[in-house]
């Protein structure tokens, strides 16, 4: 209203002056609009999972409104959580993911430090090579990898196929390159003088890494950890190919292979299993979200 008053009283071009805050308001409205749209789009599947997990098989099959529960029940949850099989999948997934995260960090942090800081012959090419490895999709790699492990089994008698721990060798092929790449970027953003000061203070390369670089790059390290955990937790193709016995399966494959019997889908249990399976990454994200964002954007702001 005030801008209108100015409009009448003063010369015409004064109208422009009120528009900065108005532009801002509109920008905000548009961003809210798209954010809400995006939230609806991405939250609909989990919502549908939640609805379905609370239904009995009868209600799922009935031709009622699929977006509402008329007779909520926890029977799917009770059945799954009291099934040894499902708990075994959960345990396998947890073991694989935790160990893969540890292996990944043990390899990629020193690798990133070496590639970012110790200028040796071919280090730049090697750094690019590490990233290129990540670009090769797992759907291209699983057949040669399977042949490799089969050959190892034939040659040495060490049978790795159809053992949950074969995944400990497979997942790092996905996690190590990406985590190394994140950490290279993060380490590179640490000023050169910081390690020079440490070297003059008498620190070895290893001490520079453990006492200066890792604490300073902690947000990046956490981002890499979350990434490695999520990838390991959600990986589907490798466990599908490499593990078959039900006691060796991890969660994503376990749910599909045991809860889909022929052409019978236990939708209620599938949704419940998937929802429970999504919980651990969700909890980790919720706690470490701020670190994760800081880690991913740090290179951009620190220059």
């Amino acid at each position: 209203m005030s801008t209108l008053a100015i409009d009448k009283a003063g010369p015409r071009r004064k109208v422009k002056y009120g528009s900065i805050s108005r532009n801002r308001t509109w920008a905000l409205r548009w961003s809210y609009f798209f954010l809400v749209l995006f939230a609806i789009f991405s939250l609909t599947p989990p919502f549908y999972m939640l609805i379905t997990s609370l239904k009995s098989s009868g209600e799922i099959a009935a031709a009622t409104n699929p977006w509402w529960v008329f007779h909520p029940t926890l029977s799917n949850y009770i059945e799954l959580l009291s099934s040894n099989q499902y708990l075994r999948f959960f345990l396998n997934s947890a073991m694989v993911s935790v160990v893969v995260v540890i292996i990944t960090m043990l390899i990629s942090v020193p690798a990133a430090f070496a590639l970012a800081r110790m200028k040796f012959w071919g280090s730049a090419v090697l750094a690019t090579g590490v990233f290129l490895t990540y670009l090769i999709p797992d759907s291209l790699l699983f057949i040669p990898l399977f042949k490799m492990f089969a050959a190892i089994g034939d040659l040495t008698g060490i049978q790795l196929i159809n053992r949950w721990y074969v995944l400990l060798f497979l997942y790092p092929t996905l996690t190590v390159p990406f985590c190394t790449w994140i950490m290279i970027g993060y380490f590179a953003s640490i000023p050169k003088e910081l390690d020079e000061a440490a070297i003059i203070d008498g620190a070895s390369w290893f001490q520079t890494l453990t006492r200066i670089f890792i604490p300073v790059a902690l947000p990046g390290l956490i981002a890499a950890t979350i990434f490695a955990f999520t990838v390991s937790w959600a990986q589907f193709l490798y466990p599908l190919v490499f593990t078959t016995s039900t006691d060796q399966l991890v969660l994503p494959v376990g749910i599909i292979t045991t809860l889909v019997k022929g052409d019978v889908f236990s939708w209620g249990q599938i949704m419940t299993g998937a929802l429970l399976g999504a919980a651990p990454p969700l909890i980790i994200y919720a706690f470490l979200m701020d670190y994760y964002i800081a880690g991913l954007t740090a290179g951009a702001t620190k220059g």
Partner: protein
Amino acid sequence: MAEVNLRKVVKRYDDVEAVRGIDLDIADHEFIVLVGPSGCGKSTTLRMIAGLEDISDGDIMIGGDVVNDVPPKDRDIAMVFQNYALYPHMTVAENMSFGLRLKHYPKAEIKARVTEAARLLDITDLIERKPKQLSGGQRQRVAMGRAIVRNPKVFLFDEPLSNLDAKLRVQMRIEIKKVHQKVRTTTVYVTHDQVEAMTLADRVVVMNKGRIEQIGAPNELYHNPATRFVAGFIGSPAMNFLPCRLEESGDKLNIRLTDRLGFAVPPLRAQRYKNIPRNEKLLMGIRPEHITEARPHAEPGVEPFDATLDVTEPMGMETLVYFSLEGTPLCGRVNPNAAARVGSAMRLAVDLNNMHLLDQASGAVLGRP
């Protein structure tokens, strides 16, 4: 405490020679400042002393021992960086004690040394803070504290004040000088700021294009430069240079600046210049403070002339006047009360007792005492 010696030290990056065989002897307790324009090799020289850069050729000695292949941590040096390079996740006390902790000093001694250094630098209250909670000046003090607690043979400073604002820079300059007067550790200090160099140094090393142009005490460099580069680099505003010739007239020596303008060279200077060939192309160097307003009474060697002022800069304690002589821009410093007006002619005087004569081709200062 130790002396530092550089013998024909060379640094090559592929085809480029950044440092071209420099010799430098730094005495025990001495405060040496390496000064020069960017790219002159001063920082590279410092980093070679620190061991952060390999030496391509020559020898570097600290305390009489050749340290060419000794890693930085075993050279017993401490370095202060331009951007402070404090460890951001450690407190001030942890930053200062990091080196000592790596060397497994007893806890009591670490505490004593940190406390003493903090007292010396007046940062006792800040000891538990993190670097990001400190101002630029405070961070610089902590960086110095980290150097002091180590009690090294040599302090190395790499443009430590460049990130501070002008006022703080002057203040920290005095602090650094005070600290050196107390701890007396041999110091090598790199800066591009000639005022910092003049005020801090026992001796200044002027570098240019990878070579040492001149080494000397601040006043010696100022009053008796060896080359045109040093004469022009040291002093602000810079020394004036104008083309000239020496002429003999009877038993007197004249310096001819233009067809219409020439002065008699004062006897003391004429004595110095007696062997310089006449009628050769030379340069006269004269500092702005030796071009002043003309005084009513004549002084020996001070010659008056007229100039039309292009620009004046009142500085408070003096006024800088800019004018040109036959196309050569010149600067003088006059009393603020003298009527210096842009566009008007002014009677100025040049004090030839302080003139320098340079070879136009080589840039060498001729007839140095």
